[in-house]
C-alpha cells in the first residue's frame, strides 16, 4: 500500500518538481510515463527513499518514509523496497548467485536458497548461476536484476527504465517476467519509463508533464 501526498523536490531554484499524489491500495502495477527531464527518476528515488522530499509525505504499508533517517531508512529500504535500474547494475566482482545473496546480506535477512533457485528457474537464467555478470547479455543481466530485487520479498518493486536498453523481443520478455513475478510474489510494481512500448502492457498509468519553473 503506497500513498504519497504533495511531494515536491528541488535541485535548485530553476529545477523544481511537484509530483501527483499516489494512492494505490491494491497490487495493480503502475506505469509512470513521461519525457526525459520531467522528474521521473527523481520521483522514483523519492519513493525508494534514496532522496528526501522538500515537502509532502510518502507512506508505504503504514510507515512514513519521510520520517525515517540514516540507518533506519537504509534498513527499511533494504527490507521493503526492491529497486531495478535502467542498466543492469550488478556487482561485477561477484557471480550471479552471489549477487542474489547481496540484498539479504545488506538488508540483514536470511538468504532463501529455494527462492533464489526458483527465481533463476522462472527467469530462465539457471545456467548462468555461477557466471560473472559481464558474461551475460543485457537481457539476461536485467533478469538477474529482477531476481535480485525480489530476493528480500519486498512490498514494492520500483523499476527505473527497466527496458530502455533492450531490443523489442527482450523488452516484452523482460516486462512479462517482471509482471508475472510481481504477481506471484504479491509485490506492487511501479515502473517509470519513457518507453512507449510498455503503454499497451499496463492498465494503470500516470503521465508526468514537463515541469514549469515556479519562479
Amino acid at each position: 500500500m503506497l500513498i504519497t501526498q504533495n511531494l515536491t523536490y528541488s535541485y535548485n531554484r530553476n529545477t523544481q518538481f511537484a509530483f501527483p499524489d499516489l494512492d494505490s491500495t491494491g497490487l495493480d502495477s503502475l506505469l509512470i510515463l513521461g519525457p526525459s527531464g520531467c522528474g521521473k527518476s527523481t520521483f522514483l528515488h523519492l519513493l525508494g527513499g534514496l532522496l528526501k522530499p522538500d515537502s509532502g509525505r510518502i507512506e508505504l504499508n503504514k510507515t512514513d518514509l519521510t520520517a525515517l533517517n540514516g540507518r533506519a531508512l537504509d534498513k527499511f529500504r533494504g527490507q521493503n523496497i526492491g529497486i531495478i535500474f535502467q542498466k543492469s547494475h550488478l556487482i561485477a566482482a561477484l557471480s550471479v548467485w552471489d549477487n542474489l545473496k547481496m540484498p539479504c546480506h545488506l538488508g540483514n535477512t536470511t538468504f532463501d536458497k529455494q527462492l533464489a533457485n526458483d527465481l533463476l528457474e522462472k527467469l530462465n537464467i539457471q545456467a548462468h548461476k555461477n557466471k560473472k555478470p559481464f558474461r551475460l547479455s543485457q537481457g539476461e543481466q536485467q533478469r538477474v536484476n529482477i531476481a535480485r530485487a525480489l530476493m528480500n520479498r519486498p512490498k514494492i518493486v520500483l523499476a527505473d527504465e527497466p527496458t530502455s536498453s533492450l531490443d523489442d523481443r527482450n523488452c516484452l520478455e523482460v516486462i512479462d517476467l517482471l509482471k508475472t513475478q510481481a504477481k506471484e510474489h504479491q509485490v506492487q510494481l511501479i515502473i517509470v519509463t519513457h518507453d512507449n512500448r510498455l503503454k499497451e502492457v499496463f492498465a494503470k498509468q500516470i503521465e508526468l508533464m514537463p515541469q514549469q519553473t515556479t519562479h
Partner: protein
Amino acid sequence: MNILKLSWAYLKAKPLSSLLSVLLLAMAIGIISLLLMLNKQFEGQFTKNIKGVDMVLGAKGSPLQLILSSIYHIDAPTGNISYKQAKGILKNPLVEKGIPLAYGDAYKGYRIVGTNQLYPQHYNAQIKEGREWEKDFEVSIGANTAENLGLKIGDQFFSSHGLLDDTHKHESQAYTVCGIYERSNTVIDQLILGSIASVWKIHDESHHEHGEHDSHEHHEHDGHEHHEHDGHEHHEHDGQEHHEHDASTSSTTEVAESVKAEPDNAEITAMLVKFRSPMGLMQLPRMVNEQTPMMAALPSIEVNRLFSLFGVGMDMLKLLAYTIMFISAISVFVSLFNSLKEQRYELALMRSMGASRAYLFALIVLEGLVLALLGLLSGILLSRIGLYVVSNFVKSDYHYNLSVGGFVKEELYLFGITLILGIVAAVIPAIMAYRTDIAKTLSAN
C-alpha cells in the same frame, strides 16, 4: 556472503594492482623483519659468548681479530704469546681468573681448542655423555660438533692445520672422543676441547716429521699471521731441545697437572681474563699493552665496534625498506582510489539494497586491511626464508646455529604499523565511499 568475502572479491577483481601492493609490502616487511631477526640473533650470540670475559690476551695484531678468533672462533689467531707471561698477568690481584686457549687446528672445520676445565665451566657446559677429557689426546666435543660430524664416544680422528679442511693433516697422533657436552647455546657447542698439552705435542711431532728443511718455511709463516693457515702453535720454534722433555712429562700427568708442567717457553694463543672489579678494566689493558709484548683486547669494545660497523649498513637497509613500505602504502591508496571510480555505481546500488554509509566505509577500509595483512604474512614468510638461507650459510661457514622460528618484540610493532598503514591508505577512498550520493550516482548515466 559477508563483508570480508565482498572485499576479497573486489581485490580479486583487480589482481594486478592488488598483487603489486602486496608484493611491495611483503618486500619491505621481509627486509625489516629479517634485519630485526638477524640483529637479535647475532647480538644474542655475540653478547652471550662474551659474558664474563673482560679482557683477552693475545699476540699483537688486530684486536677485533683476536676477539673474533678467541671468543667466537670465527677468525684466525693473531699469533702466539708466552704462557708464562700470560700467567704473570693472572697474579695481579685485580684478576679473578684466566682461561688459557691454544687453538689453530681443526677437524673438518670444527676448531680444536686446547684449554683447561675452566673453559667449559665458564659457559656452564654440562657433559651429556661420557666425561670431560683427562689425558692428552682425549677430547670432549660440543653438541653441534657431535651432531654435524656424527662423532660418537670412542671415535678417533686426526686434526688438520687451520680452520680449512684437509689442508695439512697431523697424522702422527689421533684424538679420541671421550665426552659430548649438552647444548649450551654458546661457542662450546661448535668446538672440540682437549688439553693444551695435546695441542703442543701434535705440533712438536709434526715438526719432528718435517725435519730441518721444513722449519725454515714455518718461520716465514710467522711474518703474516693473519692468514687462516698461520694460526699455528709455533711455540717450539726456538726451543726444540725441550720437545722430548715436554712430551714425557705431560704423558705421565693428568691434564690439570700437565698445564703446570709446561716448559718455560711454552706458548698459547690467547687467554680469556675475568676481572675481580671494574678497576681491572682501568689498569690492566693499558699495562699489558705498554709493558708486555702481548696485546689486551676488550671484547665489549670490539663487539660494539663491530656492531656499529654493521649498524651503518643495517640502517641504510632499514631506510630502504621503510621507503618501500611508504611506496606500498601509496600503491594501496592508488589501487583503492582508482577502483572506486568503477565501483561507484555498485556502491550506490548497495546503498539502495540497504547498506549503510558505515558499511561502505568499512568495506573499503577492509580492502586496505586485507592487502596489508597479505603483505604482512608474505613478508614474514619471506623473512623466515631469508633467515633460513642465512642460517644455513652461517651454519656451514661458521658453525653457529640461528633459530628460524619465533618473533622479535620489534617485529610486533612492525606488524602493528603495517596494519595501521593499510587502514590509513584506505581512509580517503573509504570516506569517498561513505559520501556516495546514491540518487546522483544512480542517475548519472
